[in-house]
């Protein structure tokens, strides 16, 4: 019967539920409209227009995501798949859609100042951002490996360009190229994984795969396992798990800061969405096979991320490693492999989005060379930004009364509940290590440079690109037992790092002269985004239940 239908060259196009793919559509259409307008108006298109338009698109897409959320979590509604099983709308995907929409709004609103400062044409930037977001959204709601792969590629290819969009800087180009080559490599690996999974299950549809795995006993599951392993590698690359993380520090550092902010938030959201859906939900029956892999990945990611963050001198690089460490935490929820673990991961993603976008927005607004040394005494020159950054960094370190704390708490307690004590322990230890590098930046920001340090550092030329070596000579000792009788005020292990130049003198002068340092105005968009991020982080850190409820309600449907 089917065959005869095929014979007559009429194709029965499946029913398309547009509201089910609303957010993706909004993003793509928004991008196309902006592109068209820009093409018609030419270069007279005001940057402000594209900024506002991007934010508007983000808001509409957020509303569309909320509609899906209420559809699937309402009393009489359930998760459903749409467009002939290509996408699935469940609580989980709705949350991912919301996250990506929020990221677009935030980065869109905050990037204007940076873009005009760096003379980046914004229509292309905004267009690519929206398209990339649509890819992440597809990953979040994909119910088919092909759709997921396309989502991944849409997201990634746009990110490659965004990484390289600051044409005046060599670092930007290098970031783009590194991201691109490694991304292409990992995409091929991921795709091979899809191929092997397809071959061993006969389907690319996630529901189909899950059903096949549930109903069939595979005696020789080697190919299936290989496919799963390769797909894990692909996801691990996208979310930056050690040892597939190597691109992240360089790309985060080299990319224009709004692009970094966007990729840190969106690539993680999209990547983890796919990761959790495929590994936990679809391949849940293979848990015994993938759990050790995830366990090991989580452990080394946690440890390496924290340790590497400590030795960084570039704030963006440090944040990159810290985001690697965060990925490890998110993965802890998957190690737990329970509903509460997934909820914990989702909550972590939620909290992480605000923390990371806020942090990078501030870093972008501060500008400069991103050398940590430039952050010394920042609280006196840029009190608003420094305070915001301080709060967000402390939140990232997991300090109580912030969402960062609850995020760590949720995943660790899920791991404990699942009797994964070892990983819970390692996660806590790495959180302790992490506290140091976050606190270090905070301490830098609140301590003005002393005269001695200024005079020490003046005239000391230091090539930052290679200057980041660390050799803990006497300082190691000083840190732990420096209080002993033998300490004699060895000046080398104070908080001072020789600075790149005597630039910070100005900071001091400001302080000494008037106590009212020069205030550099913060752009409206940046101010708004920073306030929102900090507000969210603190408010829902104090009042945790709404977001926790949200994450708990957001169930994954295979």
């Amino acid at each position, binding site marked *: 019967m089917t065959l005869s239908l095929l014979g007559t060259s009429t194709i029965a196009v499946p029913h398309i539920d547009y509201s089910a793919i609303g957010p993706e559509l909004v993003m793509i259409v928004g991008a196309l409209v902006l592109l068209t307008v820009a093409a018609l108006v030419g270069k007279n298109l005001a940057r402000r227009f594209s900024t506002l338009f991007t934010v508007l698109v983000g808001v509409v897409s957020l509303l569309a995501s909320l509609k899906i959320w209420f559809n699937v979590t309402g009393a009489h509604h359930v998760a459903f798949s749409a467009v002939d099983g290509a996408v699935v709308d469940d609580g989980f995907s709705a949350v991912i859609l919301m996250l990506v929409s929020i990221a677009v709004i935030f980065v869109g609103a905050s990037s204007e100042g940076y873009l005009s400062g760096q003379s980046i044409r914004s229509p292309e930037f905004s267009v690519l951002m929206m398209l990339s977001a649509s890819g992440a959204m597809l990953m979040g709601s994909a119910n088919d490996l092909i759709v997921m*792969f396309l989502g991944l590629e849409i997201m990634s290819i746009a990110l490659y360009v965004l990484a390289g969009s600051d044409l005046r800087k060599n670092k930007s180009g290098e970031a783009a190229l590194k991201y691109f080559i490694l991304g*292409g490599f990992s995409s*091929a690996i991921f795709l*091979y994984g899809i191929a092997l999974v397809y071959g061993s299950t006969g389907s690319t549809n996630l529901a189909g795969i899950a059903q096949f795995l549930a109903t069939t006993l595979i005696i020789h599951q080697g190919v299936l396992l290989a496919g799963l392993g390769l797909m894990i590698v692909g996801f691990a690359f996208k979310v930056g798990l050690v040892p597939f993380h190597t691109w992240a520090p360089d790309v985060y550092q080299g990319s224009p800061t709004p692009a970094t902010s966007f990729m840190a938030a969106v690539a993680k959201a999209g990547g983890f969405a796919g990761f959790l859906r495929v590994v936990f939900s679809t391949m849940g029956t293979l848990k015994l096979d993938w759990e050790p892999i995830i366990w090991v990945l989580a452990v080394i990611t946690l440890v390496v991320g924290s340790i590497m963050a400590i030795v960084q001198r570039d704030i963006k690089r440090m944040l990159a490693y810290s985001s690697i460490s965060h990925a490890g935490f998110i993965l802890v929820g998957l190690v737990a492999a329970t509903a509460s673990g997934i909820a914990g991961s989702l909550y972590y993603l939620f909290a992480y989005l605000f923390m990371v976008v806020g942090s990078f927005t501030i870093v972008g607004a501060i500008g400069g060379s991103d050398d940590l040394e430039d952050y010394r005494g920042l609280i006196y020159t840029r009190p608003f930004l420094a305070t915001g950054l301080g709060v967000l960094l402390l939140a990232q370190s997991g300090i109580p009364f912030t969402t960062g704390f609850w995020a760590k708490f949720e995943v660790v307690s899920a791991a404990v509940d699942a009797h994964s004590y070892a990983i819970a322990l390692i996660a806590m230890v790495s959180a302790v290590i992490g506290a140091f590098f976050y606190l270090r930046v905070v301490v830098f920001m609140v301590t003005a440079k002393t005269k001695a340090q200024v005079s020490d550092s003046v005239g000391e030329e230091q090539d930052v*690109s290679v200057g980041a070596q660390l050799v803990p000579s006497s300082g190691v000792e000083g840190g732990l037992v420096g209080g002993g009788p033998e300490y004699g005020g060895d000046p080398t292990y104070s908080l001072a790092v020789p600075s790149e130049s005597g630039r910070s003198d100005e900071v001091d002068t400001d302080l000494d002269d008037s106590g009212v340092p020069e205030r550099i105005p913060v752009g409206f968009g940046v101010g708004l985004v920073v306030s929102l991020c900090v507000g969210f982080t603190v408010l829902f850190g104090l009042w945790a239940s709404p977001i926790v409820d949200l994450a708990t309600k957001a169930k994954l449907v295979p």
Partner: protein
Amino acid sequence: MTITASWYLVVAAILFGIGAIGLLIRRSVLVMFMCVELMLNAVNLTFVTFSRTLNDIAGQVVVFFVLVVAAAEVVVGLGIIVSIYRSRRGTTADDLHIMHG
């Protein structure tokens, strides 16, 4: 009777490996990039073979999408290479390591 599918898949796996090795050992960005194409072709071959084995058209449809993806990747990738090459000499990947650590 035709060759069994396993042979095709073995060829594909080896092709994938050659592509991966090429990407790891070559220093020219362009060649690395071609190696990615080799890997994608290996995947395509795998898909088509599975499509035959399973008698399922999906495998062939995927190849279609992979072609689109590859094309888009090539355009963007070559764009990046060109834009980098314009501002510095040499396209070996090793020339790009100002960021590290």
